[in-house]
């Protein structure tokens, strides 16, 4: 399965966070590599998506759609302080 990139989850993140998130910066909690969300690898698995670190391949974000609303599990992607939500 080919990966998309973080641009493709921009709408879901905008809905969830209420602001543009594809340019938000942070780092992988597994390997420490720093990324903008748009640069992450996205594997769509309806109804949701798994987002992986391009450096180490670890899952850093999971999106799950439940009854028409998106839940975002961002535990393994450490958003930079200025991006905190």
């Amino acid at each position, binding site marked *: 399965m*080919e990966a998309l990139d973080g641009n493709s989850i921009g709408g879901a993140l905008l809905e969830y966070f209420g602001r543009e998130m594809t340019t938000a910066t942070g780092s992988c909690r597994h390997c420490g590599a720093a990324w903008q969300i*748009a640069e992450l690898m996205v594997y769509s698995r309806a109804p949701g998506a798994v987002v992986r670190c391009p450096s180490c391949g670890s899952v850093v974000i999971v999106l799950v759609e439940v009854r028409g609303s998106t839940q975002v*599990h961002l535990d393994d992607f450490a958003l930079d302080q200025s991006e905190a939500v």
Partner: protein
Amino acid sequence: MARAALPGRLNWQLATVVELRDETASVKSIVLDPPQWQGHRAGQHVDVRLTAPDGYQAQRSYSIASAPEDEHLVLTVERLDDGEVSPYLVDELTPGDELELRGPIGGYFVWEQSQGGPLLLIAGGSGIVPFRAILRHGTAVGNPVAVRLLYSSRSLDEVIYREELIGLEDDGAVEIDYTLTRVWPDDWHGHRGRIDRELLEEVAWEPSEQPLVFVCGPSGFVEAAAQALVENGHATKRIRTERFGPTS
């Protein structure tokens, strides 16, 4: 730990279809009038949602083809025969219909004058769509930076915006190199074959000129082009990519 979902703050809105334009045999531009549109930046996309009579919903992302300065919002959609959304958009939609969308979305794959140049745009197939927005926006603000476009298509018949691109090139807005990967006319003077390091070396600005590079197309195309750029010495932080998948 799960966060509680917040009520949707990016609202879906209905846009009226004003006009449909044939671009190629499988590609149409959908001209829209979204009454609540707040404006957008060149390179952004929207999500489009279709709802079946039984309530089943399918949603896809489409790049915005119009410049912020244009009167209408334009999406350009390629029909994928096994797609859930694009066959409806390309074959069934008619003027006067309403389409549900949300956006604009994205801040990464965006070009504005303040980002400067020179600008290198690399498109594979319908990856040209956000670049139409960027080129039209560049023209609207007086073509402040030099722009080169490298556009890869399977055949000449599949080149989207062909006449408009000729016009933009004639106006000095952009220098364009085409490469055709499957079939080409006997008298074809453009490039042949997939984008590789040699072609990029010939077409791209030198890495020392620090071009800002945007690459858009199918995942495999974007991956190959971005890797070749890096191998040619372009800085990864000057390369922005947007991939689209086969499921649209």
